[in-house]
């Protein structure tokens, strides 16, 4: 055996594991490179399918951690953090010999090597026979990242293979376990908004539902409030889900929703687009004959651009446009800025705790139907605006006051970036 084999040590179960859960953080950098090594391709699945399954496995971990994984096909092996390969019996210079079909189907080593026993019948995610390569890969990558085995029902880190429906995901506890090692996902958002959907139930009654969206750069997440997480498989490209609006860096979204009006606008730069919810695409010309995109100065006289953000206050029938340290209140009925505006943000949205205020350049102003509140986002924190219920409990609170800042990731969980090379998956 080559001497360097002696450096290979089985993961976990060794004295470095932390005393309690046995989980140890394995990497201290954010972007990790991986490779299915050339001599380690399986003879059972087409090569590109193997690489696709591993790319998906890594992506699933990056959807819940600040880590990003990038496939590296050509760089020096020494710079590849995780090397994967298939083998039979004695394999890939590994000190541990695979046992043939049955029992041990894969293992992972401290230095980030992951081996799969090619005597096992590995199958693609859609198959309901054999051993799901995706599920085993997610498990072994969990080891490489530092997670030990657990017997907790539903965990991907159970030692034994459990046949799974095709759509398996990392459950809440697995997410918390890996976030204990690598932290939660932080970051600012270009815009956040609730999208109203009108549906009719089987009795023909109109139902109004909403979905929450977070936009960042050229990708976005749908946030499932009832599950406290983003939709499985998000983020995805804006262009994949929204048609006719700019592909990235949206400044603001405003939904003017009254008894007679239902207008949805996206803002970017000095232009805005109106979105047709029924046709799921931006208007080129709306029912009033307005052609889009339009100049903000035309549709909203007195409003500067580019904007920082904006939101529509349904009670007051006002749009609050934010730019720098100023806020503009725009009366949608009279189609003009209120006379007393612009004002300083801190004057319209006063701090309830001294100096605890965004002051200027906020990223997003988001009215949440789930929380019946407006949130002002800046960086990775938010300030909640005092709402009617808050005032009923504490009459001393100023109208539109801002509660002290909180962490966005502490309220909206697992809004994580993935490596741009995997966004299209």
């Amino acid at each position, binding site marked *: 055996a080559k001497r360097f084999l002696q450096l290979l040590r089985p993961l976990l179960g060794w004295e470095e594991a932390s005393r309690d859960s046995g989980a140890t953080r394995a990497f201290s950098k954010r972007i990790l490179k991986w490779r299915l090594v050339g001599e380690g391709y399986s003879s059972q699945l087409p090569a590109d399918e193997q690489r696709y399954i591993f790319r998906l496995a890594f992506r699933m971990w990056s959807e819940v951690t600040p880590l990003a994984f990038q496939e590296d096909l050509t760089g020096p092996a020494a710079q590849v953090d995780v090397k994967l390969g298939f083998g039979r019996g004695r394999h890939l210079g590994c000190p541990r010999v695979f046992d*043939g079909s049955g029992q041990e189907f894969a293992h992972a080593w401290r230095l980030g090597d992951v081996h799969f026993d090619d005597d096992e019948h590995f199958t693609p995610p859609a198959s309901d026979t054999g051993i799901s390569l995706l599920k085993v890969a997610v498990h072994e990558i969990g080891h490489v990242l530092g997670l030990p085995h657990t*017997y907790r029902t539903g965990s991907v880190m159970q030692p034994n293979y459990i046949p799974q429906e095709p759509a398996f995901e990392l459950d809440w506890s697995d997410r918390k376990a890996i976030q204990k090692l690598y932290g939660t996902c932080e970051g600012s958002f270009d815009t956040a908004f609730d999208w109203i959907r009108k549906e009719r139930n089987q009795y023909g009654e109109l139902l109004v539902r909403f979905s929450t969206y977070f936009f960042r750069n050229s990708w976005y997440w749908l946030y499932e409030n009832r599950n406290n997480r983003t939709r499985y498989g998000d983020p995805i490209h804006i262009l994949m889900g929204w048609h006719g609006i700019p592909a990235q860096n949206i400044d603001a979204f405003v939904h003017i929703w009254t008894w007679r009006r239902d207008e949805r606008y996206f803002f970017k730069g000095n232009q805005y687009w109106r979105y047709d919810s029924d046709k799921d695409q931006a208007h080129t010309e709306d029912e009033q004959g307005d052609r889009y995109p339009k100049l903000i100065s035309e549709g909203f006289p007195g409003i500067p651009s580019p904007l920082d953000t904006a939101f529509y206050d349904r009670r007051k029938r006002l749009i609050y446009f934010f730019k720098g340290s100023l806020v503009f209140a725009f009366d949608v009925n009279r189609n003009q800025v209120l006379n007393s505006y612009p004002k300083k943000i801190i004057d319209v949205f006063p701090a309830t705790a001294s100096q605890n205020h965004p002051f200027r350049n906020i990223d997003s102003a988001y009215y949440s139907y789930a929380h019946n509140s407006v949130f002002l986002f800046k960086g990775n924190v938010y300030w909640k605006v005092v709402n009617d219920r808050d005032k009923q409990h504490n009459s001393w609170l100023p109208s539109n006051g801002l509660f002290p800042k909180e962490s966005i990731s502490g309220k909206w969980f697992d809004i994580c970036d993935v490596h741009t090379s995997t966004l299209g998956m």
Partner: protein
Amino acid sequence: EILFHSRDHSDLEPSFLRQAQPIANPRTAQRFLAKYGWTAVPRPGDPGPSAFAEAMRAFQSANQLPATGVLDVATLRAMNRPRCGVPDHRGTPDPRAQTPPARAR
């Protein structure tokens, strides 16, 4: 093509020739427990078999089986299930994979 590396395609042979040795008796069961970190630390004066029984009980309990410490059919079935090769338990280091502490390169 289906990938092969040997000139005679022998590595494409059906894998049924290479079956994992089933765990079917106390000796292979003991090796299984040691391999995956289910080794109870023997106490002074502690006869070996009870340490084995203790390790067995821990494994049975983790697998929601009656923790009898006796090797029964259900326990053998659990041991023969497909699984990951990483040890379950901190336990004592696997003597077979004994390696010196890694020196910084």
